[in-house]
Each structure stands twice: as C-alpha cells, then as structure tokens.
C-alpha cells in the first residue's frame, strides 16, 4: 500500500546515478532492492496482520474452538467405555459374532454391579438405549438385581430378561466400548447398524431426520422464493422513484429490519392466532363464521408467514442496491427500438438484476436454514425446522451426541452455502442498511 510505495520511492531516490548498469540495484543501506522490497512488503503484511490478530484470537476462542469441540461429541462418546471396564477388556479379546459365553456374561455382571454402586448405570444404559431403543430398562433393572446374581451368570442374566440373549445388543455394546464411532451420524440420517454390523434403515415410523432436513431445506427455499416475489416489485419501486420518495418508503423496509425478532414474532401471534386481529376481522365482516376461524398460527403456515416477514428486508436491500445501479436509459432505449414493455423488462432489465437476486436468495436461504426462535414460537408441531430438533436434543432429551451430529450436518450445509455465496457474490460485498 502507500507506505510500501513511499519507501520504494525513497530508496530509489537516494540511488547514485552513476551506478554501473550491470550491478544489482541496491537500497540506501546497500541491500539489493529486491530484498528491500520483500522486507518492506513483509513488514507491511505483518503490520496489517497484527491489527487483525486480537480479533482473530478472540473469535477463535469464543466461536471457532467451542464449535469444533462440540462437533467432536458427534463421534466421541465414552459413556459406555469409561464405565464398563470388564466388558471393554472382554470385547478387546473377543469379536462378537454370536451371544457370548459365560466369560462375557461374567464381565457384564461385574460391570453392572460396579455401575450400580458408582451410580453410573443410568449413563451406560442411556448410551446403549440410543442404539437399541427399549434397552434402557433392561440395564437399570438388571443392575438393581445384580446383588442376587450368582454364577453361572449367563443363565441367571438371561433369566432376568430374554433380550440379553440378543446378539444385536452385544454388537452394540461392543461398538460402544470404543468411544469413537459413527453411530450418531447414522442415527442422524435415520440409519443404524444391524446384527452383522451393516448399515440399515431404521424402522419406518422412526425415520424423521432426513425428512426434517429435506423439509427444512424446502421450507427455506420456499421462503426465499416468496421473499423474492415480494421483494422484487418493492425494490424496483424504491430504485426508480426519486430519492426523496424512496428515502421515505425505505423506512417501511428498515423499520422491520431494526425491530426485535421477538417483537415481530409477537406481533404475528397477535395478528394471526385464532382469536387474533385477522380472524376477528374476517368474522366481523362476515367473511367466515365464528366456528370456522382459520388456524394460521402454530403450524407450518405460521412459520412461513412470520419468517417471510422477518427475512424480507434481507432480500429487498441487496436487490435494491443492484437495481439502483441499472441506468433507466437501457429500458428506455429498448422501448424506443420497438420492444414491448414486457420484452424491455424481461430481456433488458431483468438480466441485470440477477446478481441482486442471487445475493438476496442465497442470504435469505442461509439465514432461514438455521432459524430456531420463530419456528419454536409459532411453528406448532408441523412448522419445526432442524434447529428445533437440535435444541430438543440439547435441552429436552439431553442426547448431546445426537445434537452434535445433527449440528455437524447442518453446519456442513451452511458452510457449503456460505462458500457458494463467497464465490458468487463475495462476502466483502455484503451490505447492511
């Protein structure tokens, strides 16, 4: 930048004029100019980098590291391996192909007894239950009865519950004895390991995650497209009106942009709930009967309407900034050359707005895919997005590994979109307000 250029200029200025031509050009202190330039550039690079460094470290500590650490939970879970030492040792020496013999059950009995005493049986049972639904009680009730267990353990334990004689359970335990596994990613994509260790789909009734990912993407795309349809005429109007009008109308766009997300969500609840303003208006004017009030909130419609409203400014602003740069003379020229107003719009004006459309659609889409608050408040059970399920596993079911696996997949999708945005539009071109 400026200093570099200035320094180079300085060094050039003090160079003796009568220097031999075949000698390398040197700076004032005698170093070759190439080296001096490289040094100056390096120094300038460092100076720029040092300015960014504090923030970089800050963001690494409060953002990047926590997320990376969270993601490790998606494949690392030592709930079983840390609490069932005998079985871990047994599994190291024995590959499970069928239900094990007495040695395996003796290890199980010893571990159950220990886990009961250490009060870690719940953690162990929960871990196995993630992969064998319904096995939790099998573990806790067996642990409760370990004191009375006597050898031979195999008969005794199977007598407690026939399910201990299931090879799939033993397979799962063997896999869980290694803290690193892909089980949670499988579960997050509606699959599991079967008794042979092959990946298979889970029971049809339990397949929810892929569908939810697809739903989230479709819903976000839908919202982005609705936003585009709504934003296009408005942005066009703002871009073509004289400044004093458009500045006034811009307030209509910026006010929602600056208003709290929760305020806007509350407003929509007040407006759309079945006893709300909108339904009251319809009933009051006799358009619908009091019995047939519309259910616009607490379902997918609620999510779509509220999110469209919240994200619309993110579509209008980039569109507007692109449209503003399109000279109105182009359309006028097309018209004067005989184009109909439609042809002039479609063939001349519209193609020039495509960068704005790309920026807006992609931004709205990215933001929508990760939405949590609005669907949680107005989405009911049909308007939930993948973020809500991550929150569910974090706050309600406390299956944190599952939350991490779902989060990793979501993050991956977002990063691909973000990369795309950077490639197509460039993050430096992101504008606010």
């Amino acid at each position: 930048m400026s200093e570099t250029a200035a320094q180079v200029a300085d060094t050039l200025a003090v160079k003796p004029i009568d220097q031999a031509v075949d000698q390398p050009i040197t700076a004032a202190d005698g170093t070759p100019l190439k080296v001096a330039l490289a040094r100056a550039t390096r120094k300038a690079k460092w100076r720029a980098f040092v300015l960014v460094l504090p923030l970089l470290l800050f963001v690494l500590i409060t953002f990047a590291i926590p997320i990376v650490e969270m993601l490790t939970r998606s494949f690392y879970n030592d709930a079983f391996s840390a609490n069932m030492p005998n079985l871990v040792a047994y599994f190291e020496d024995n590959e499970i192909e069928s239900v094990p013999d007495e040695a395996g059950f003796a290890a199980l009995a010893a571990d159950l007894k220990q886990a009961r005493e250490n009060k870690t049986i719940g953690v162990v049972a929960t871990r196995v239950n993630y992969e064998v639904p319904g096995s939790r009680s099998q573990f806790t009730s067996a642990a409760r009865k370990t004191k009375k267990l006597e050898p031979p353990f195999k008969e005794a334990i199977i007598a407690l519950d026939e399910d201990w004689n299931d090879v799939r359970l033993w397979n799962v335990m063997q896999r869980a004895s290694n803290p690193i596994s892909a089980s949670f990613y499988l579960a997050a994509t509606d699959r599991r390991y079967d008794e042979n260790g092959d990946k298979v789909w889970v029971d049809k009734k339990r397949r929810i995650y892929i569908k939810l990912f697809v739903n989230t993407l479709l819903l976000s795309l839908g919202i982005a497209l609705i936003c585009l349809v709504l934003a296009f005429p408005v942005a066009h109007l703002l871009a073509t009106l004289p400044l004093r009008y458009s500045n006034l109308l811009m307030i209509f766009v910026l006010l929602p942009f600056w208003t709290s997300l929760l305020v806007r969500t509350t407003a929509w609840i007040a407006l759309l709930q079945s006893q709300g303003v909108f339904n009251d208006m319809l009933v009051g004017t006799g358009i619908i009967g009091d019995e047939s009030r519309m259910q616009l909130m607490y379902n997918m419609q609620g999510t779509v309407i509220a999110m469209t409203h919240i994200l619309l400014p993110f579509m209008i602003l980039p569109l507007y900034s692109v449209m503003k740069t399109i000279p109105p003379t182009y359309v006028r020229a097309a018209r004067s050359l005989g184009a109909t107003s439609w042809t002039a719009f479609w063939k001349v004006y519209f193609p020039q707005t495509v960068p704005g459309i790309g920026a807006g659609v992609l931004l709205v889409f990215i933001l929508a895919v990760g939405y949590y608050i609005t669907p949680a408040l107005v989405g009911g059970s049909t308007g939930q997005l993948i973020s809500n399920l991550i929150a569910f596993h974090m706050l309600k079911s406390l299956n944190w590994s599952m939350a991490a696996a779902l989060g990793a997949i979501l993050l991956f999708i977002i990063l691909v979109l973000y990369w795309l945005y950077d490639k197509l539009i460039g993050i430096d071109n992101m504008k606010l307000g």
Partner: protein
Amino acid sequence: MKLKTLFTTTAVSAAVMVASSAMAGEITVMSWGGAYTKSQTEAYYKPWEAETGHKVNSVDSDNPATPIKAQVEAGNVSIDVADIEYSDAIRLCDEGLLEEIDTSSLPAAPDGTAATADFIEGAITDCAVANIVWSTVFAYDSSKISGDAPTTLADFYDTAKYPGKRGMRKAAKANMEMALIADGVAPADVYSVLETEEGVQRALDKMATIKDDIIWWEAGAQPPQLLADGEVAMTTAYNGRIFNAAIGEDKPFEIVWDGQILDFDLYAVPKGAPNKELAMEFITYATATERLAAQASWIAYGPARKSSADLVGLFNDGKTEMAPHMPTAPANMKTALVNNYEFWADRDSELSEQFNAWLLAN
C-alpha cells in the same frame, strides 16, 4: 429535609442489606412457574426468608428435571433445590445426579408422629422429599360448550361431538395413559397394556385420531391461557392451574376428573449444588406439616403429609373450601390412575423418543 431523610434511610437500609447478606446465604430454587411457583413463594420462600434471613432465588422451567440433569452432566450446577416429578426423582437418583437426603432430619408431625410415618407412602425417597400430590386432568371452558358437558376422557377425544382444538402437553407421560383410557382400557390395566409394543402403538394411534386438532403446550401456565384465549376448546392441564384460573380469576373453567393421573412433586438437591447445606435446610423447613398445609391455600394440590390434611382450610380468597378441589378428594378419585413411577423411570426416554418420532412424522 425530606430528601435528607430519604438519603439516610436508603443508606441505612443499604448498609443493613450489605451486612445481612454477608451472614445470610442465598439458594436458587427451581420450580414449574406460574401459579405453582407463586404458591411456593407464598408458602415456603417468603416465610423462610423472613425467619432465617436467607434469600431464595426463584427460577422456573417447563420441567426442572431436565435442566438439573443437564447441569450436573455438563458440570456447572447453579441450582440448589429443584421441584421434580416422582419418576424423574427415582431415575436421577439412580443415575447419581442427586444428593442423598438425610430423612431423619425431617421434622416430626405436630402430634409427634415421625416424619417417615407422617408422609404418605412413597413420598420420601433416598434423594427427594415430596411436597404435593397433583394430577393431570382435562378441562374445558363451560361458556363455550353448548349441550351436554363432557364427562369422560372419551369425550376429550370426540371432536365430532365437541368440536374445537385440544391442548395437550408435548410429552409422552400422562398423554399415553389418557389415550388408552379414552380408548377403553380400564385404569387398572393401563400400565400392563403400555408395557407392550402394541399398547404403545395403540396409544399413539388413538392420539393420531385428533392429531390435527392438537395444540401442544410445554409450560404448565400455558393450558389455562390457551383456554382463556379461546385457542382450544379443551385441554389437558395440571389441576391446580385450572383451579387457580377458575376460582382465583373467575374463569368459567371446569375440570373433568375422569382418568386423572396422580403424581407427586418432590424437592431434590442436584449433585454438586453450590449451597448444599442450605438447600437441605430449606427442604426440611418447606416440608414441615404447617408449610405444606399453607401451600394448599394457594393452589389445589394435596399436601404430602397426612398431618397437613387437617390444617387445609380455605383458599386465599377466604371463602372457597379447598377439600373438594383436591385431586385426592374421594369424589375425584373414582377413576383416578396413580402414575406408575417405576414404569416411567425406566421407559420415559424410550417412549419420549417414540412420541417425538410420531409427532414429527406426519
């Protein structure tokens, strides 16, 4: 002059506050919010603060068992006392997430009966002490129902006869039992049916018949609000919340006691609570005969001590007799089901998972 007086009083009170806070402790108690937390504030927190000078920091959750489990497992516990359901108390205790409670420190009844004998059977466990008996019921707004009033759980599921939305808690517990009873299972057989895969499916199928009409609630304060706003025609609810809205706020709500599901709420201390000693002191204080009876004058939940029953009198409006509104009143108990805590302690996570899969699968 006046300003000066104000100045001195403020300074003095500030000094007193600083001085007392140096000696007095502070505990964080987590409960279920709304009318229920209010009843505990009036019956437990305020008198305790007045008597001991300690401070209770009251916080709420949809179900305190979940956040305390999360806190203990993540290793940053900030809650000292939590009010949790029976099955959760058993489960969390089994998993080593709760501190054990020394039951011998619980005060005896006024007549000298030892605490262990005075509490209703099962109300004291290794890690938790019950304070109330409550129940899940369903309720409706009588001003919105024309014709026969609903009387059974089957009516709750009959959207043809009683059109309108239904409020239900977004959880498997209680909903599954109620669905089976509505489907014709006798209360006594509910848990043996629910033990089986087919039974679970039957409950889910029954709920599926009205799935499109269900509005799901999570916090206990929501159902009375949903009823009051006219968002639902009927809703399942915690009985005390409906009572407080109906009697306390004169809302035309009626409780249907058919197939009510009884449960305890217990006080427990999460493992590693920052103020464990004080937390234990608080539990001892709050679960004394007189305090439990006092709570019953703020909300229609039965005290967990037998000796408290006789002290229960009028609601705080000064005219409503509490006894007939209690879930344990004989008239309300005819078709009641007592929550099988062992069943839920073992099966809650599985059934919740199935319930959620069902919820998301359209």
